[in-house]
């Protein structure tokens, strides 16, 4: 164990001991000595103490739950608490313990809203299985990610506004990316290649992790584990196109003029896939491209009024769901002015 972990452990033990109820001046003195011994001790103690204090808000969750049982996991998210949103005020006060009634009620409303949010939006699943064959369509709406498990045990994460058609047979796993982008974690099955086709390109894997994305002009493949073969079926003239073998860390862009492959450290290639956890990563990216990325995820569009604005370079990590904050930061750091309209935000040079 690293020292830092040991310190964290010790800080937690101090807090738990102080919480025991038989805290003496002697103990207080010993704790003070420990805190003074190293700033690392102190910061770790402060951190845990703050989190523990924060955890007191859990009392708001107890409101509306019956009796004094320890509730089963998730009980408050989907169960009594959500339903208790309209419970009478008096009951709230009684049950909320030390939480103030106002606060308890606010939490409850907030939570109910959260539940409603979780309930919206699901994948379109039109699968059926016929003697080892299965076929299914998956789609995600704008602004939503969709994680799906395919019939062979592989999983796919659909980016915003994306569509997949999946056909599994005994000998093949054919996935067609009809729109958008998807990340695949492929179940190993040497006997059945996993083929993702997009716009005439095919990315073929046996067991690996990679993503395929369709743009207006090209197809992009990012490989984060294993190897993927990128090819295209023979053209009308019967000539086979060159085949690229992409090892982990490859970012391949296949356009009309050919395939451009960049080899990056895997960690860097993974940045292209951060949309899965809700982020877009830019690194010296033109604002025009950044805006295009945001627009893949949001109904409210980001538009650029001047070409010059589009050439500004931006870097950093941004939540794609939080366009407002991105724009605010742009206004602070760049010579741009945002015009906020209901369906779009237009950036002007300032």
């Amino acid at each position, binding site marked *: 164990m690293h020292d830092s972990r040991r310190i964290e452990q010790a800080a*937690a033990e101090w807090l738990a001991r102080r919480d025991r109820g038989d805290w003496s001046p002697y103990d207080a003195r010993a704790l003070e000595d420990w805190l003074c011994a190293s700033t690392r001790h102190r910061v770790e103690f402060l951190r845990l103490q*703050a989190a523990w204090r924060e955890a007191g808000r*859990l009392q708001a969750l107890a409101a509306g739950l019956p009796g004094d049982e320890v509730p089963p996991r998730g009980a408050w998210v989907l169960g009594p608490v959500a339903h208790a949103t309209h419970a009478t005020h008096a009951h709230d006060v009684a049950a909320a313990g030390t939480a103030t009634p106002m606060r308890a009620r606010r939490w409850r409303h*907030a939570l109910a809203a959260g539940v409603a949010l979780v309930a919206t939006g699901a994948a379109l699943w039109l699968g059926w299985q016929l003697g080892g064959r299965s076929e299914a369509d998956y789609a995600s709406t704008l602004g939503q990610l969709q994680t799906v498990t395919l019939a062979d045990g592989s999983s796919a994460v659909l980016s915003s506004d994306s569509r997949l058609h999946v056909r599994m047979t005994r000998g093949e796993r054919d996935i067609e990316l009809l729109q958008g982008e998807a990340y695949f974690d492929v179940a190993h099955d040497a006997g059945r290649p996993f083929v993702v086709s997009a716009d005439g390109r095919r990315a073929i894997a046996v067991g690996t992790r990679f993503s395929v994305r369709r743009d207006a002009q090209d197809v992009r493949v990012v490989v984060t584990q294993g190897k993927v073969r990128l090819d295209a079926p023979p053209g009308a003239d019967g000539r086979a196109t060159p085949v690229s073998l992409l090892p982990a860390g490859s970012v391949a862009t296949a356009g009309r003029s050919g395939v451009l492959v960049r080899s990056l450290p895997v960690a860097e290639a993974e940045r292209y896939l951060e949309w899965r956890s809700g982020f877009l990563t830019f690194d010296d990216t033109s604002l025009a491209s950044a805006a295009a990325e945001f627009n893949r995820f949001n109904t409210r569009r980001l538009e650029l009024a001047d070409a010059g604005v589009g050439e500004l370079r*931006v870097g*950093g990590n941004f939540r794609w769901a939080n366009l407002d904050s991105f724009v605010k930061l742009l206004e602070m750091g760049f010579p741009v002015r945002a015009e906020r309209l209901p369906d779009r935000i237009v950036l002007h040079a300032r």
Partner: protein
Amino acid sequence: MPTDFDDWFVREILVHERALAQYLQRCWPHRDELHDLRQEVYARVYEAAARNRPSSPQAFLFTTARHLMTDRARRGRVVSIEPVGDFEPSNVYLVDDVSPERWVGARQALKRLAEALDRLPDRCREVVWLRRVEELPQKDVARRLGISGKTVEKHLAKGMRLIADHLYGGMPPRDGEAPAWTATDEDDGDARQQAD
């Protein structure tokens, strides 16, 4: 016991832990050192700020993190490090957009707390619930669950660490495992309006 300064540290520095963790993770190739880095960043910030409170705490936090990484890289403890010099002050601000924690709304905060609680191991979760929510004294918790006082204390210590990790999003998730909250917190935007 908590001083104004400690409160300031919690309010202005610790709230950025998720952004800090992501930043360190992005720049530093050795995952097993991230916990130690984070702790040292906090210690450095605490000491420097105790002498002279920075006017922009978050920028100061990131600058400190950058300097620490540069120091360690220079000492030859790593082979390669991302050219962190790119992080101009304005960029640091942008990087911080990862986690505008102060904007996180009530809904999210409570959801995250509930998740933190639910992720605790069974017995630990029971102990935390009885002590922190039902506010039973530790010895009553022990009696109720038929375990020793020492065990209650151990579970509490563990619960504190796990809850802090989940709440602050301190340590990066393990490979390929998204933090539990990312799937449900795309509502940052509107949550902000009800932040308190």
